[in-house]
């Protein structure tokens, strides 16, 4: 029964997409994907997603560290606020960023309708991933190991690089993969702040949307298949990471 449900709700629609995108043969598919507008949208999508994921890998780890190891007033509030991007509708997230960083910015930080705006929006929606995957690992991590290293004369950086980082790396990586998946497919927060200018600030998801609206579903399907392929690869990566993360539990 659950298989039927999943089949009707999820699998069948995906099958329709794959069929549509390969209906005209591999050659037609390739021609659409390599068209200049599709190319520029895909490059922009993967490029910005990569930048954002690196940013959030660093800042997300710092945030997780502060939430676990630091003590200050209002920490539990900060901890709760981290999940806000999960709870907030993406279109509201976009509008929210537009209010502060748009043309009517009260601080003069007008970045809307540029590629920087896309990075900003993606930082917003992918913020929780790395924090939430690193935080539990840091909580479990034994401080004694670090103290031992320090007593043997290791500096702060050496302790972090040799002891903390290897332990939290799987956490960071799974957060990065989840964030990457999210960033590649994001539309709601981008659509109001990026301006969606073809060849400049039009990301792949917006390209797909515009092609459907103008009655070219086969163009949309080809680019969507690329995104779908990326999603499958990332799902596989999550599976592999999960396998390694639980390796010692099974052994």
């Amino acid at each position: 029964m659950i298989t039927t449900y999943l089949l009707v709700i999820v699998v069948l629609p995906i099958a329709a997409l794959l069929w549509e995108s390969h209906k005209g043969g591999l050659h037609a598919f390739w021609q659409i994907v390599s068209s200049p507008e599709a190319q520029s949208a895909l490059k922009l999508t993967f490029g910005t997603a990569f930048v954002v994921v690196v940013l959030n890998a660093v800042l997300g780890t710092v945030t997780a560290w502060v939430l676990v190891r630091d003590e200050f007033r209002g920490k539990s509030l900060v901890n709760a606020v981290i999940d806000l991007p999960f709870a907030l509708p993406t279109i509201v997230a976009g509008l929210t960023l537009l209010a502060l960083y748009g043309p009517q910015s009260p601080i003069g930080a007008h970045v809307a309708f540029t590629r920087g705006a896309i990075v900003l929006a993606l930082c917003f929606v992918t913020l929780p991933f790395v924090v939430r995957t690193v935080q539990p690992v840091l909580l479990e991590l034994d401080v004694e190991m670090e103290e031992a290293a320090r007593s043997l004369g290791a500096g702060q950086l050496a302790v972090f690089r040799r002891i903390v980082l290897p332990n939290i790396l799987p956490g960071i990586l799974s957060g990065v993969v989840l964030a990457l998946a999210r960033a590649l497919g994001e539309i709601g927060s981008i659509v109001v702040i990026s301006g969606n200018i073809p060849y400049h600030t039009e990301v792949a998801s917006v390209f797909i949307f515009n092609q459907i609206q103008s009655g070219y579903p086969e163009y949309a399907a080809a680019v969507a298949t690329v995104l779908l392929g990326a999603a499958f690869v990332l799902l596989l990566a999550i599976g592999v990471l999960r396998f390694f993360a639980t390796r010692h539990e099974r052994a």
Partner: protein
Amino acid sequence: MPRRLGLRAVALGYLVVILLAPLGMVFYRTFQSGLEPVWQTLSDPDTIHAFRVTLIATAIAVPLNTVFGVLCGLAIVRRRFRGKGLLNAFIDLPLAVSPVVIGLCLYLLYAPRGGWFGTWLAEHGFQVLFAMPAIVLATIFVSVPFVAREVIPTLRELGNEQEQAAATLGAARWQRFRRITLPSIRWAVIYGVVLTTARCLGEYGAVAVVSGRIEGSTETATTRVEDLTLTFNTAGAYAVSLVLATIAVLVLVAMTVIRPREENA
């Protein structure tokens, strides 16, 4: 200590720049010109209708995906069957795939001209695309994983000794589920339901593709926000956003309250 303060400043500074300052700005902008425009938008029949469409879709998707999530969790944790890995992967798929791609998939299935089922359905007088059924299908699709993802780890931790004990004492299957399993996974289910609801209410990408966004008919709350923005009714867009943001904050409060219980249960 300065290093510690430095890290704290970086983390909090980032949160303020990305999250809190923009959100505060929306509150300020919404009420900047008084309550009148806010009220005007929120009492507009098209806005009310948009919220109703969103609520109907959510009210259908959440119970379906809750039942599915619990059954799926039980199957994945307790049963051995072929294709389990595949099932596990397909549950996560809606999290990894762009909502626009999901919308396109449904479009290709249900388009009245050329869709796999759409053509047949149109001949028999059913319109799925650009109507309520498509909005519901899109909402269900994007919110499939949440309950299952919360229930699976809890069921793993739980083990099945208690149920086996109950079975040897003569408890029937349904009795075991109702008296033992369900109470143990209760908080995980509730947490999953909260996440599912938030996702349903906030869905934009997939719904934007399949709903047709007809004012007062198939427009949802989120597409309404975009349409108000595009027609330069900024105050109206902020007002609708504020309602959605308030719901998000309530969801956040619920998450904060429920999570410790889920972890202790």
